[in-house]
Structure formats: structure tokens, C-alpha cells
């Protein structure tokens, strides 16, 4: 869980002979149109404008910045994440539509980097969310960023980049670490467990003591009826 290699790869069994071909096509298409979320979490973001613009030009690989997390595929964690930012990063990550990929840029995301003594930054990013790829360096050059993105494209094409599935399968582990850092009343407006059921990714690690703790104080999120027209509910008095 804490290392990428431990993520279990589950072989899918398909009966339709065309399914495999179709899966490969989908993965190929996914790897060729990646949208990076435009969120500068730390100092590594200063090397992204050169990587995106004329000189190194990421767009020739089909990678473009995107402003809304809903439409983005890649969350770049550019450098150290302070604890205040980490909350927003987790919120953003959960809002992104699956499949989604996380890249940790800079040494600080790996192990705290030069801020290992700092009270304000989180040290290991992969305790709080699954990371598909790390690009080490302080800060990595644009060439390194592009090289890393190409590796990610390769991993998407071969179906290895499955960090997002791990988040659903081992939600309890990640939630536990988040609760340890943010306090037991930590809650995001996202219903990860229902999403895991939706994607059929409910694993052994999805539910556990931490999700039980979450349910205790979580305000139940009830689905509204689908209605036509814009009707608003009267506030309860």
C-alpha cells in the first residue's frame, strides 16, 4: 500500500474475445489525452510553465493544463504539501473523476525533503493518497517532468497505473492516516464507499475501523429524487 509495487494487480476475466481489444483501445486513448490539473501546491510548479510553453511544449504529447478538477486526469503534487494544503489536495483528488492519476514531483513528496524537520508539512504523500509516479529532484527539470509524464503514459497504456483503484480498495488505510493528521472529525463531502461500490472495487480494505469512525459522526448524505425543473427544498424550520 505504501509502495507502488504492493498494489495488487487483479486479472480481469472477460468472456467476450473482443473485450481485450476494446480495453486496449480505451487505454491507448486515455494515455493520449491527459489533462493536468492546474494546481500549484508548492515550489515545483515554477518548472511547469516552461514545460508547458514553447520551449519544452508538453502539448505535443497530448498533455494540457485544465482548470477544473472534474475534467482533469492527472493531479500533479508539485512539491511539499503543507497540512492546510493537503486537506485541499485530498478534497480535489476525491472530486476528480476516475480514472485519475497522481504524480508526486520533487523530493519533498517522497519523504519530506529538506523540510523533514518542519511542523507544517506532510512528509510522505503516499500515506494519504495513492501515488502512481514520483519524479525526484529539487526541483526536477522540465525534461524530467516530461520524461515522467511519458512513463505515466506508458503505464496507463499497459494498465499498470492503478493507484485510483487502490484508493477505493484500501480506503480505510488512507482514511486512517488522514484522521491521524487532521483529527477524528475529518470528513470530505465525497462518498468514497458508494463510489467504490459503483465501480465494483469494494475490497477487503475498503471498510474498517476508520470508516466506522467516519460513519459515527458523518452527516448522512441522502440522494435526492431526480426531478425535472429547478425546484428547491424549503428549509426545515
Amino acid at each position: 500500500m505504501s509502495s507502488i509495487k504492493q498494489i495488487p494487480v487483479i486479472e480481469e476475466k472477460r468472456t467476450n474475445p473482443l473485450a481485450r481489444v476494446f480495453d486496449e483501445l480505451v487505454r491507448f486513448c486515455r494515455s493520449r489525452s491527459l489533462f493536468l490539473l492546474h494546481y500549484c501546491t508548492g515550489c515545483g510548479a515554477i518548472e511547469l510553465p516552461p514545460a508547458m510553453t514553447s520551449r519544452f511544449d508538453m502539448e505535443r504529447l497530448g498533455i494540457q493544463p485544465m482548470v477544473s478538477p472534474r475534467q482533469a486526469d492527472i493531479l500533479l503534487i508539485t512539491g511539499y504539501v503543507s497540512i492546510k494544503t493537503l486537506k485541499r489536495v485530498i478534497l480535489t483528488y476525491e472530486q476528480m473523476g476516475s480514472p485519475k492519476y497522481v504524480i508526486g514531483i520533487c523530493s519533498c513528496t517522497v519523504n519530506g525533503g529538506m523540510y523533514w524537520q518542519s511542523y507544517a508539512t506532510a512528509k510522505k504523500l503516499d500515506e494519504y493518497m495513492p501515488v502512481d509516479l514520483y519524479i525526484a529532484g529539487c526541483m526536477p527539470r522540465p525534461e524530467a517532468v516530461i520524461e515522467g509524464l511519458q512513463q505515466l503514459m506508458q503505464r496507463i497504456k499497459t494498465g499498470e497505473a492503478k493507484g485510483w483503484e487502490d484508493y477505493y480498495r484500501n480506503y480505510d488505510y488512507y482514511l486512517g492516516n488522514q484522521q491521524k493528521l487532521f483529527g477524528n472529525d475529518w470528513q470530505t463531502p465525497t462518498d468514497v464507499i458508494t463510489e467504490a461500490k459503483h465501480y465494483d472495487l469494494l475490497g477487503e480494505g475498503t471498510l474498517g475501523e476508520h470508516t466506522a469512525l467516519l460513519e459515527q459522526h458523518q452527516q448522512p448524505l441522502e440522494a435526492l429524487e431526480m426531478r425535472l425543473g429547478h425546484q428547491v427544498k424549503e428549509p426545515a424550520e
Partner: protein
Amino acid sequence: MRPENYEAQRQPPSNEFELNFGPNHPGIEGNYALKLKLHGDQVVEAKADGGYLHRGFEKLMEQRLWIQNIALVPRICVPDPSPMELCYSMAVEQLCGLEVPERAQWIRVMQLELSRIAAHLFTFGGHAATTGMYSTMYWGVADRDLLLDLFEEFTGGRVYSIYNIPGGVRRELPDGFLQRVSETLDYLESRLPDYDNLFFKNQVFVRRAKGVGVMSQEQALAWGVTGPNLRATGLAFDVRRDDPYLVYDQLEFEIPTEESGDAWARTLVRRLELVQSIRILRQVVEALPDIRGPIRAPIPNPLAWNVPAGEVYTRVESSKGETCYFVVSNGGPKPYRVHVRGPSSMHAVQVLEKMSVGSRIEDIAQTMFSLDACPPEVDR
């Protein structure tokens, strides 16, 4: 997060609403947030929300050796790191009474001015992008990269150079380096008319930026604004001239000013400063070959270096304003206290809050980029 999980609630009829502007927003510079209260699309109240980039530098510096902090300080301001290095090095030199060799001082001036040009290209590129002119941003970032190549050649680092150490600079310049600096300056100068035609004379930019985020000189002085933002209101104040450090008192340069104090004037002042920085660099390139000698003063074993007790306040003009360090030593191997006064701590918090009121949502990004707010300096 699924939309059906949200229950829409009836609000009293009103045009007022609140908007969280950032931290994840393309119109904000860096990782920073503004909480806006809006009436229609007009801002009624703005509150800055920082701390997303807080690393506790001042605490970290108390826990590390004097020499270790050299690697830490450039991280405080990402787009323009060199003044931070210099300011800290100067503080340690003044505490120890170290005399910096003349050659090192000239090399430091070169590093500072290269860094200033890079930061200004980046800033007005960013400002252009907020008005929808992405070509200027693409050009600005690409031209900045040429300067980063120079940095890489003589310091070893593209962004964080870690080149200044107390007592001097770390390395001698490579062979033929000054020639390459001069070629890059030629190229940059040849680009300036292009920038003028593309951006500064462009009616799209002029009409968008004029009259946005106006502050008068009295307001700027009362709010503690420094740097290009103060000069855009008509006061010719520059730490390089009025509180000189290094060899700036031997160099010829002017201090460009503008009168109107709006977003347009601030960006124009940066454009005019590019010319002055190029002028300074030309003088450095000319003078450096004749100035020979060591590049750093001998310092004691840096791993067991007890800096004499005392306190010192050093000031350096960065691309954003006056950068100050207040360093206190109690005679130990580590600083007792380092206070970093980033220039943005003034104009990115209080001034931005006050100037946003009354403007429209789409002008906030312009105001922020034209002020050249640098959130990591505020948060430290």
C-alpha cells in the same frame, strides 16, 4: 462528490454571494486564496487567506547550522530566489565582520540582475495571461528560460542557485561566460520592441489594465508598499540607490517611475526596469574582466562556525520590493532568530484586500498579477 448529495436550500432573495477564489484557481498566483463577498460581479469585501505554503522557515533556520541555511533561504521566494540568498549572506557577513572581495560583489550584482530580469519576464507574462493574451506568456517564459540556462551554467542550478555563501560566491565564472551573457542581452534587447508591439501597446491590454487596482502615492506610502508598485505611483525609491549595498553605488542606472498607480503603470514600470537591468548587466560585463582577485573571503570551518553575538537588519531590492532579514545571533553555531520580511507580505495581504473592493471579479487576477504577489514569501 455527486451533485445529488447536495440539498439546495432556499436563500433570502439577494444579489450578494460569497466566492472562494482559490487556492485551486488559475487566476491566482501560486497557492493562495481570497474569500470574496460579491454583489453581482462586484466585490464588496475581500479577505486574504494564506498559509497554504507555510513551511515554518523561521523555525527551521533556528534548528540548522549557519551554512545549512544557505540551501534553505532561496526557497522562500520561488520566482526570484537570488535576493533572498544575498540578504542572508550579507547578514552573516555583517555579523562576522567579513570583508567580501570586490570580484565577488560584482558577480553578485550580475546574479541579482539576471534574476530580476527573469522574474519580471515571468510576472508580466503572467499578467498578460490573465487578460487572455497567452502569446506574451509563452514568449516571456521562453525568454526567461534563456536566463535560466545562464544560471545553470554559472551556478549549477536552474531555479535555486545556492550560489551566494557568506564571504563571497561559490564558484568562479566559466570560460567565455561573459560573452554568452552579452549575447543573451543582445537577444533580449532585440525582443523588447516585439514585446511592445505584442503587449504593451496592445489596445486589449491597455484598455483592460488602465484604471484597474488604482492606488495613490499617499495610500502606497501608508500601506507600506515598496518596489515597482511604489514606483508606479510616482515615488522614485529604490533600495539599490537609497540604501546601497554591494557595488550599486558605482553603477549607473535610472529609476523608472509612472504616475497613475494602476495595473497598467505597474506592469509598465517592470518593462522599463528590464532596460535598466540590461544596462547594469552591460556595465558588469564590461568591468568584470579587469577585476581580479579571490571570489570569497576565507571563512572558518562551516560545520563548527560560531557567529559572534549581535543583531543585524539587511535590506535588498528584489523584483517585488524590499526584502529584509533580521538576524540575531547569540554566539552559537545556529541562528538564534531569523525574521524574513518578504516584500509581498505587504501588497499580497492588506493592499490586495483593500484594492479588490469595488473591482469586478475578472479584474482580481489582474490586480494580483500586476502587484506581483508572491505567496511563499507571505507564508514562509
